[in-house]
């Protein structure tokens, strides 16, 4: 880009201080922690790749999800995924996938999705529990900061007017129309609702369901786990919420990409967000 056009742009656009330093730091800590939690969690899942509903795994009812390997007629390893009794062949991805030696191996999730890459429950648990603490402490700091600094009230809580415009916001999102100018300084209403859901529903739920799997934590009020259907149900919810978070991240990154990758990235690194003076193209 030429100097001249830069100067012209600078006149028309302003850099707006969008994210404070604590929010930026905690955002990136969260990115690292959640990524490692997901991948080490998938490794842990591989130690017993089946999900149940109920207090135990052996209730007389079959698992709701099961990922396993089998050998087919020609003696080749195949991956099999069974959901509510429906069987799918998932060789290469689920049940059986290639290891570093290129050989198909019995494993629930492929090695590129797990930490560590091979089946190693003890090490996966160490990663998972270490980053669980980092994630929880970071999350508590974020909530405390958001309340005290009024980030929550100012930036995240939707106003009545915004809530009434929710239908328009959905239509805009579906058409990939995004606010420009002054409006782009604020989160839009769908964005606010999504962030609030993730911060105050999904993330606390995934932590709580993790704790529900702890025989120690279960003894705090014997039976509290049954509110969620029992320990094995809690394990299933933990797994499902983890994937809902993945879905959130995919949509989040998609929105980041289509609304200006570098502008968004810069605002989450330096805090400065370029506000275009002109209307959205």
């Amino acid at each position, binding site marked *: 880009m030429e100097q001249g056009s830069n100067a012209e742009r600078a006149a028309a656009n302003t850099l707006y201080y969008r994210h404070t330093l604590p929010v930026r730091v905690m955002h990136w800590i969260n990115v690292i922690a959640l990524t490692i939690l997901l991948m080490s969690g998938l490794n842990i899942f591989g130690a017993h790749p089946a999900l149940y509903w109920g207090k135990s795994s052996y*209730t007389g009812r079959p698992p709701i999800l099961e990922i396993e390997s089998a050998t087919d007629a020609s003696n080749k390893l195949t991956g099999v995924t069974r959901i509510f009794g429906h069987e799918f062949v998932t060789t290469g991805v689920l049940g059986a996938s290639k290891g570093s030696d290129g050989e198909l191996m019995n494993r629930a999730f492929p090695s590129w999705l797990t930490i560590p*890459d091979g089946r190693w429950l003890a090490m996966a648990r160490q990663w998972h529990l270490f980053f669980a603490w980092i994630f929880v402490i970071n999350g508590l700091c974020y909530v405390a900061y958001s309340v005290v600094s009024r980030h929550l009230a100012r930036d995240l809580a939707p106003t009545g007017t915004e809530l009434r415009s929710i239908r328009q916001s959905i239509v805009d999102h579906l058409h990939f129309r995004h606010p420009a100018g002054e409006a782009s300084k604020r989160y839009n209403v769908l964005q606010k609702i999504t962030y609030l859901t993730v911060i105050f529903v999904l993330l606390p739920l995934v932590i709580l369901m993790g704790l529900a799997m702890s025989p*120690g934590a*279960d003894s705090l009020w014997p039976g509290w786990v049954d509110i969620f259907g029992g320990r094995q149900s809690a394990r299933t919810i933990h797994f499902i919420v983890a994937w809902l978070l993945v879905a959130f991240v995919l949509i989040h990154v998609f929105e980041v990409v289509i609304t200006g990758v570098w502008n968004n990235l810069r605002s989450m690194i330096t805090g400065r967000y370029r506000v275009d003076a002109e209307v959205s193209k």
Partner: protein
Amino acid sequence: MNFSKFHPRRRLFLRALAGAGAVLVAGCDKLSKTEWFPKLLGNTEILTRKAQRMVLPRKSMAQEFPESDRSPEFRSNGTAMPNNPQYKALASSGFAAYGLEVGGLVEKPVIFSLEELRALPSRTQITRHDCVEGWSAIGKWKGVPLTAVLAAVRPTAAVRYVVFHCADPMESDGTSPYYESIDMDDAYHPQTILAYELNDKALPIANGAPIRLRVERQLGYKHAKYVMRIELVDSFEKIAGGKGGYWEDQGYEWYAGI
């Protein structure tokens, strides 16, 4: 928004994202194989133990279930028949010659026969067994509270841990006998029992006959099967790998409350 030509900067971003992912995976695998990093991660166990011990009352009780919640069959995991000639000889005579040796830092070491253990007060509990792998099974256990056994041998003031030595070798050549250890908080917990019955029948060999430890606020591998000898110690550093248990020596947490 125009999607027909995908912006090169966006492509660059997605490539960078994929690259960062690959670096992360490779980095984590490298770190797992170093000496220092697992040690750093291992500190979590201390934090978790201190946090749980701080929040939980010392005698907080594990959930107990009604009969209707019992698993139709109690899963046997790990060893189903110890590869140990002495154990097999004991088993073939219905453990008539079995003696549970309780010693170490005690005033009065005692060897308990099965009959003597059964004559002590008993506790029956229907609890959930949570394996570190992720599965759970619910079973009804009857046994003697460890407290009653400890009272008979009178531990000295120096005792900090109770170590359980087991009959099942973990190596195919008959070496590396299974062992476990718990601290005194768990040793004196009312639900910590030496179980000799499962689901109203004599404890089957597959589930740890004749005696298996139940330590209900921790994961399954703490519940040592085939207990032959109990040793009260002030440190387990000199026993086997020094980490306080067979699986602990393989990298699992000593405190298995989560």
